[in-house]
């Protein structure tokens, strides 16, 4: 295995920036494979080289295997990092990359097929004796047949994309009456997001916590785990807040789940970074799925363990990363990540797009901002609404929560609405503070759009002054003759 001199980044937004930074740490050049819509982005500005691989529509660019490989070859790369989402869990892509004489930074195509396909993974888990959630994973995808299967499992049932993740192609079905419509919708979303309409069904556990283990297979195939994360705060099956380590695990559970995670990854001949997801309910854990890629929430693990998972991925692909048997990893302190979505929290989270104005993340120790766009860039409607991640670390969980709230309050994003006010409300909720939240936390406490707080008279006066100042009235005395308060105004 030779050292890479240039790596192709087959992704966009904040994760593309993350990969470029890891490459810079290792002295490796990058070629960003981007769509026509992503020219105004940090990744585009940071990459050593860029190659446009197609138009905005994902099917023609980020999901186009041939375009990505042609771009990587033309850009003079020896390896491809797929990030997460898009083609990161597509075995055909991993295979095509290898066939083209490039190195796929991730597990082998066979590993992805056996673990990444949620249906195969469950068969493997059965062999390994891992506990599974009851469900239907058959080949027959006929809607009427699926409805019958759902009735057999017993509602509530969750329908999921076999090839997917990130909440797309996933719907909760509460009764037979709505099953048909929701299954069809899940199939359409799955086809559009992952190129395959295949879905499967699972019994919905209604008091479960989402706990996952970071696993890592080194260049020799030795798999170790890098402890756990909890991601129970989810909306529409998308994670919003993640933390490491989970506040919900006893030492015994942590040990057993960690062993189970390593066992299934080892069975799948795993190489590189992966995540084994579990549901935990009433002290029992069940395998949910294995994600054969880097996860969005990998930074919280990095923060509590002091490791760089993306660097490790690259070194593993170069054949030079081996777990040191003398290393004893002990998580220190607590880390929380909040995903910043471009959406309006006061309108129930409808997407918000447009030209970004000022973007400012407050400086300070042990906080980390992973973001893909700066002032002057445009947030387009073509891609995922997650535009940034805020990560903090502190000595313990209560302090980390306190710190995160303050950091979010001081973060400035102008031009598009964000879910920051919503995140602050969640972090302040007693259930979250106690650490007892389940995956139904959001639907239980945040089913209605949050209320926009009214502005005080003082706030209005200050805003009037700011407007006068911006309009060059030159006055910073906070009074203007023509107050806009008579007109409609709203917060975000």
């Amino acid at each position, binding site marked *: 295995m030779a050292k890479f001199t240039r790596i192709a980044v087959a992704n966009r937004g904040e994760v593309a920036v993350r990969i470029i930074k890891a490459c810079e740490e290792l002295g490796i050049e990058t070629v960003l494979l981007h769509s026509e819509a992503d020219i105004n982005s940090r990744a585009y500005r940071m990459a050593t080289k860029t190659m446009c691989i197609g138009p905005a529509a*994902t099917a023609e660019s980020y999901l186009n295997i041939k375009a990505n490989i042609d771009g990587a070859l033309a850009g003079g790369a020896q390896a491809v990092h797929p990030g997460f989402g898009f083609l990161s869990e597509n075995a055909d892509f991993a295979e095509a990359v290898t066939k083209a004489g490039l190195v796929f930074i991730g597990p082998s195509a066979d590993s992805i097929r056996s673990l990444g396909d949620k249906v195969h993974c469950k068969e493997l888990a059965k062999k390994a004796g891992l506990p599974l959630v009851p469900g239907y994973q058959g080949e027959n995808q006929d809607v009427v047949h699926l409805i019958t299967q759902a009735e057999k499992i017993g509602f509530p049932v969750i329908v999921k994309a076999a090839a997917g993740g990130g909440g*797309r192609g996933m719907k909760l079905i509460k009764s037979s009456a709505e099953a048909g419509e929701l299954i069809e*919708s899940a199939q*359409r*979303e799955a086809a*559009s*997001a992952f190129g395959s309409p295949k879905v499967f069904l699972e019994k919905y556990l209604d008091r479960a916590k989402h706990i996952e283990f970071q696993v890592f297979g080194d260049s020799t195939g030795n798999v170790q785990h890098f402890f756990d994360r909890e991601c129970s705060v989810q909306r*529409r099956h998308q994670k919003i807040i993640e933390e490491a380590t989970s506040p919900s695990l006893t030492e015994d559970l942590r040990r057993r789940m960690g062993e189970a995670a390593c066992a299934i990854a080892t069975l799948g001949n795993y190489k590189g970074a992966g995540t084994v997801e579990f549901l935990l309910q009433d002290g029992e854990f069940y395998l949910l799925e294995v994600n054969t890629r880097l996860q969005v929430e990998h930074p919280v693990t990095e923060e509590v363990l002091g490791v760089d998972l993306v660097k490790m991925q690259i070194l593993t692909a170069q054949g030079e990363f081996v777990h040191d048997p003398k290393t004893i990893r002990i998580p220190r302190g607590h880390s929380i990540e909040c995903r910043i979505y*471009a959406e*309006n929290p006061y*309108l*129930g989270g*409808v*997407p*918000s*797009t447009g*030209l970004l*104005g*000022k973007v*400012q993340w407050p400086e300070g120790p042990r906080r980390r901002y992973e973001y893909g766009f700066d002032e002057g860039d445009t947030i387009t*409607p*073509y*891609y*995922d*609404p997650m535009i940034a991640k805020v990560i903090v670390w502190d000595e313990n969980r209560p302090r980390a929560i306190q710190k995160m709230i*303050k950091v979010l*309050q*001081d973060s*400035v*994003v*102008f*031009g598009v609405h*964000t879910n*920051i*006010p919503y995140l602050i409300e969640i972090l302040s909720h007693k259930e979250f503070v106690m650490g007892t939240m389940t995956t139904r936390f959001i639907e239980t406490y945040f089913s209605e759009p949050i209320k*926009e*707080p009214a502005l005080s008279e*003082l*706030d209005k*006066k*200050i*805003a009037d*002054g*700011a*407007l006068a*100042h*911006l*309009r060059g009235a030159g006055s*910073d*005395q*906070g009074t203007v003759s*023509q107050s*806009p308060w*008579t*007109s*409609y*105004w*709203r*917060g*975000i």
Partner: protein
Amino acid sequence: MEMKIRVDGVDHKVQAQLLKGTMWVHLNGRTFTIDTAAGKKGRKKGGASGSSDQIVSPMPGKVTKILVSPGASIQAGQSVLVMEAMKMEYTLKADIAGVIDSIQCTVGEQVALGKLLVKIQPEKA
């Protein structure tokens, strides 16, 4: 820009920026927007907004499925069309019972925020 605004002798730190006639303000740990065109109505709220005999696009996105045809009777709460934005599907439902008067979009069309998509003839009371 960041500035200090004096009110009753006290200086307050505030960040503000004018973008297309909207002022964005960050003050005391929160961000809000103000429509600076005095007297002009603010942007319509999302959802099946405006008058409920119209379904308008709550966001910029693509129409992926139209579930009704002109002349069809519908119930309040019935799904009328499906949109996709930022890789998620959103189903738009009718607010009121009535008859579909007209459909002003096509499948696959990229529509802007606030575009009228479907008109409904309300049920005669």
